[in-house]
């Protein structure tokens, strides 16, 4: 078992999950609440990582963070071949799932409840915090779990932009590839089991959360005052 790779994967995944949550939620809110030209195009672009080959994503990330890019030249962000690059790759592949799931959950919140909160003197921010997000929480959580499960398994793009430096940038999926290449099958076995277990747990959890139970209508409760 390659423990450095395991811990690095967890670290990368933890940070990526937080970023997926925040960025994905903001994008989902924007898609639910606003109308603008080119909205469909933006939605499609966000979903693109779901279908693009990992090498294409890796290539784009190389362009985005490499010498000559705005991020490199103007903001002095130099993360290629560091573990932070693995975080970037994880976020890009995880966000589509987060956006999909949380967007559906946000759209499902009954607007009458938000209107009720408005008449009760609540600001839009308070409504979001106390009404909309709590009611959409299952879909949001499911989205984070799916997104971070996908991010945990990120391999192709990560391989291209982190440089696969054992102990420094090598994540678990990449370490498995390495172990197989070097014919260390016992190592690979164990790591494959760990990955499978994590993915399985994540999917089961997400499944539990996803179909939010319908709130029971009052009609079928007894009407006694």
């Amino acid at each position, binding site marked *: 078992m390659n423990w450095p790779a395991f811990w690095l994967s967890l670290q990368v995944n933890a940070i990526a999950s937080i970023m997926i949550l925040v960025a994905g939620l903001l994008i989902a809110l924007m898609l639910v609440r606003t109308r603008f030209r080119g909205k469909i195009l933006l939605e499609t672009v966000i979903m693109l990582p779901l279908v693009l080959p990992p090498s294409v994503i890796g290539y784009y990330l190389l362009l985005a963070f490499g010498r000559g890019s705005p991020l490199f030249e103007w903001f002095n962000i130099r993360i290629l071949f560091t573990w932070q690059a693995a975080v970037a790759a994880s976020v890009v592949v995880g966000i589509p799932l987060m956006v999909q799931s949380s967007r559906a959950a946000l759209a499902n919140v009954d607007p009458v409840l938000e209107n*009720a909160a408005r008449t009760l003197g609540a600001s839009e921010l308070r409504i979001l915090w106390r009404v909309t997000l709590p009611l959409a929480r299952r879909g949001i959580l499911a989205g984070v779990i799916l997104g971070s499960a996908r991010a945990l398994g990120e391999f192709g793009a990560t391989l291209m932009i982190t440089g696969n430096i054992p102990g420094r940038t090598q994540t678990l999926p990449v370490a498995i590839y390495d172990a197989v290449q070097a014919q260390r099958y016992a190592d690979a076995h164990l790591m494959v089991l760990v990955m499978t277990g994590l993915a399985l747990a994540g999917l089961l959890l997400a499944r539990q959360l996803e179909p939010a139970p319908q709130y029971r209508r009052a009609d079928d409760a007894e009407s006694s005052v």
Partner: protein
Amino acid sequence: MTPQLTVDIIKRLGQTTLEMRFTAEAEILVLFGPSGAGKTQTLQAIAGLSTPDSGQIRFDDAIFFQRMPGKPVVNLPARKRRIGYVFQQYALFPHMSALENVAFPLGRRRDARDRAMELLERMHLAHLAQRMPHELSGGQQQRIAIARALAAEPHILLLDESFSALDRPVRERLHEEIRMVQAERRLVVLYVTHNLDDAFAVGHRLAVVRNGRIEQIGRINDVFTRPANRHVLDILGIPNAMNARVIETGPSGSLLDWDGIFLEAPPIDTPPGAEITAYIRPEDIRLVYPDRSLSRMVLHNHLEGIVVERRLERHMYRLRVALPDGRPIEVIYPSSLYATMNLTPGERVRLALRKESIVVIAPRERVSPPVGTILSERMHDAGAIDPASSSLT
């Protein structure tokens, strides 16, 4: 000083145009009319949940909404209007307990919980404070929704078909509650319903709404005894409306031509030749015994017809009679009356429409121009409305 809500707004809604103009004081004003008439739209505009195209909504000195030529545009957000809004489907927050729901409008105030508890006690619900909405009956949920609306200390309370999903006894108790709360707090209450019983049970005044406008507004009894036009008759479900032409009128009475049937009616102002609408209440029609001499009361307006249907309703019979040309007439009489007469369907009867009971309401309305023209004229009056800037929210 008595609080006063003034509404004068225009809003285009698909096919119809909402054109609401009324004032309400510390009272319960019932907005009554068929669904789609614009009642809910009116409440939403007052609460700030939708924005009218033009006009003004004012409460005492506070302007909630204003969009008029020569005056600055105002659109106070819903949260600053201090209006309690009680929805038909309760709209309790399903993830909060009863107590948390009522405390919601109180925000971070330190005494929020105590005050919420007081309100729950006031609505006789203290024992349910910790329950979640889905654990409560419809009536209990609606009481909590009322308590929550009152927690924000509103000056205006809007009830949007709030009780229509509830059983009759529950509804009656809530009506009582609303009347008490209204009196205690001197609230301006607007109560939207399509149920006339509700209107009578709770309302001080009645506004009959149709096609986005108020056809008539007044004390409930006045509206019922003096409906302003044919639409009001229809909406209130008053039968035996007739469109007739005035043949002659004098100090002792008038003569009407109801499509070939001549009727004597009380004196009216309308000159001969005018088209008018009149009606007679079903309970004011008498049946004439074939074998008895006529009393002085029923000398006029005898019509022959055939019984179509007879239904027993509580202590009265409702009789539907068809005149020879098929025109229907409805008669209501106490079940103790006419016991010796055979009034089963198919029987021939003679009706007497007492002259004094024929009520002539206003000359018949001219056919109103199509909605489009009204709107464009109005737009012209109100100064051009720029469609690009019509969303103010």
